[in-house]
């Protein structure tokens, strides 16, 4: 099971793990102070993390289903699987998903940089 967490989501997850069990209102206060988040934003992220299966929101109290250590070890395993035995195209796609440059273009551009003289 592959769970992706962005940097921001990770920070928030850390906040929950550090303070659990914690009420959502308490989380709202904390995120407002640290991140300047609106109430609705905090609730949205909580819901998303719960949907991803990491946490659960029980009548306003948020607790974790997976502990922090468990989660990060899962991430590493996942990474290794993907790198070596997972589908290669998917891996490359993930790696290059932020780039619009072809290999040829990269070579050309690198050549330009290498030619730079003072």
């Amino acid at each position, binding site marked *: 099971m592959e769970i992706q967490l962005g940097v*921001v989501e990770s920070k928030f997850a850390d906040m929950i793990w550090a303070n659990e069990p914690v009420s959502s209102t308490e989380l709202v206060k904390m995120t407002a102070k640290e991140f300047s988040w*609106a109430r609705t934003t905090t609730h949205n992220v909580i819901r998303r993390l719960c949907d991803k299966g990491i946490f659960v929101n029980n009548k306003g109290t948020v607790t974790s289903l997976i502990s922090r250590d468990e989660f990060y070890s899962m991430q590493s395993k996942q990474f290794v699987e993907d790198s070596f035995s997972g589908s290669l195209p998917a891996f490359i796609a993930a790696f290059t998903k*932020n780039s*619009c440059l072809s290999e040829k273009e990269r070579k050309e551009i690198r050549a330009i*940089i290498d030619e*730079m003289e*003072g």
Partner: protein
Amino acid sequence: MEPIFLRMIHLSISASFLIPAVMLIRLILKKLPKWIPCLLWGIVAIRLICPLSLESRFSLVLWSNPIPVGEAHELEEKGEHRTSAEESYSSAESGLEIVNNQGTGENNLEDYLSGISYREESARQNAVTHFFLKNTHILSIIWIVGVTIMLLYALWTYRALRKRVAEAIPYKDNIWVCDSIDSPFILGVVCPRIYLPSSLNALEVCHVISHELVHLRRKDPLWKMLGFILLSVYWFHPLVWGAYILFGKDIELACDETVISDMDLQERKAYANVLLSSGIHRRVVLTYPLHFGEVGIKARVRAVKEYRRTTIGVKVAAIILCIVVAVCFLTIPVKPVIAQDNSVTSEKNIASGEFIEGEKRNELVCLSETAAEDLPGVKGEKKDKSPVYETENIVYEFDGCTVEPRWCAYDGLTLFVGYDVTNRKDDTVEILVSAENSAADTTYEKMQSPDGIVIMNAVIPFACYRPTAEIIFSSSDHNDSKKYCLPIEITEGNQAVSKDVDCHIKLPSSSEDIHITHIDITKNAICLKLDTTSLWEDTTIYGWKNIAKLKNGTSRVLSNGQEPLVFRDDTNLYLRYTHSSIEPGQISEIIFTTEDGREASMDISSSSRG
């Protein structure tokens, strides 16, 4: 709204010369630092915003015949004149400047001749302006809808972006980090925030931040927003879109230049590497929020490689270039003025004719393309086909009736006006029109419409050329003392020749010369001003038949072969002839023929001058 629309169309036409020029300069002078094209785009923005133009001999704007704003206005009532700003705009900028008696034009032949060809060019332009004038209302509605759509789109994308970055975490000052964005951007103009994608590594973060901070320092969010507002206003203009896109690119490159201007070679190489490896999305920015699309990694890296510090010389050259561009494109060409001779001195003796004794002119090619009865005589002069003022919603109340002026056309010597009279009493009241300084009585044509409205067309002749006139409506019922004034100007498209001349024609019977001092020619009438009143009694002049000879060799009989109208004021006599739609500039000579066949000619084409 319509006057704004028309002014904007006019501005976009002159921008159509400026923008390609800037694009060309940008292409040719690629090596220049990129803040220079940004300045040039600033000049484009000025052109698109500022409706005033100075005249300059160096102007490269080839089409500057603006759509006269006056036409789209409704005429105002009694006593209220248009504001002087509008007056000067519509009269100073309508195609060809009519000569006023206090005109300022240059007094030379070249201007006169170029005035003729300019007029032919502006006839073509007039066809387009006609299109805009006829469809102004619907076109301006379409335009406003387009503007609204653009602005709504910008608002919508702004809101969408704000939602996207709701989950951003503050990083430093006004820099935030967010998961759900792919490339860094600046959001907001008043309180701008830099948003970074969370996927940047440490080195990338450093350079991206310096790049974005430079954007903030150069106030790029503000300029971009201004640019987008202009784009919204000129959404229909493809060149403005091109300008906006290129402007966005130039901003990016200029920003890069500022960032690396303090770096040494090693740092610059590192910066270029960051650009390469970060692989930030290449996207052309079209939207208001500063979703700065990158220019293209290759272009940016090349720019970094080729960066050279600018010298003072380059800076000075750039400023000069901007001034040159501004002069060439923010100005409009000097309009040729039909020649006017203000001074009557003996050197300017254009024509002096004497009766040619004994010679009879045999060939009189009387070209009347229209049937003889169509040659306008004094009675029943038909209205010109040139554009007329349409008056709407003007209602004048008299005791016995209501008068609504419907249209008027004025070419300086003849004033045509059409108006409806709705009578309240059983007795019909006559509404008379006149104008100050008009030469003779108004002639009327009267028709009755089925629903009882009386439709009147009136012709008011003038003895000499006047650039403005006032139609006065008064009632024939002497108990009703109301009078209404409708001020009008020369209708666009009516050109005229108005010249001082110094022409002597000898009379056979007396020792006195006829001394013609001024001639006014419009498309329907010719007025000669004689500097004597003593001929009022002399019937000789009434018997003359006058012919106008045209530049193409043909001739026209004036006044349909009948007598001219003769008027007099304290010091002068005025002879008023009519003709049918000859272009004033086409008349080269006027030939006077007496009853017994003798003739004299008056040369008015000024081609005899050296």
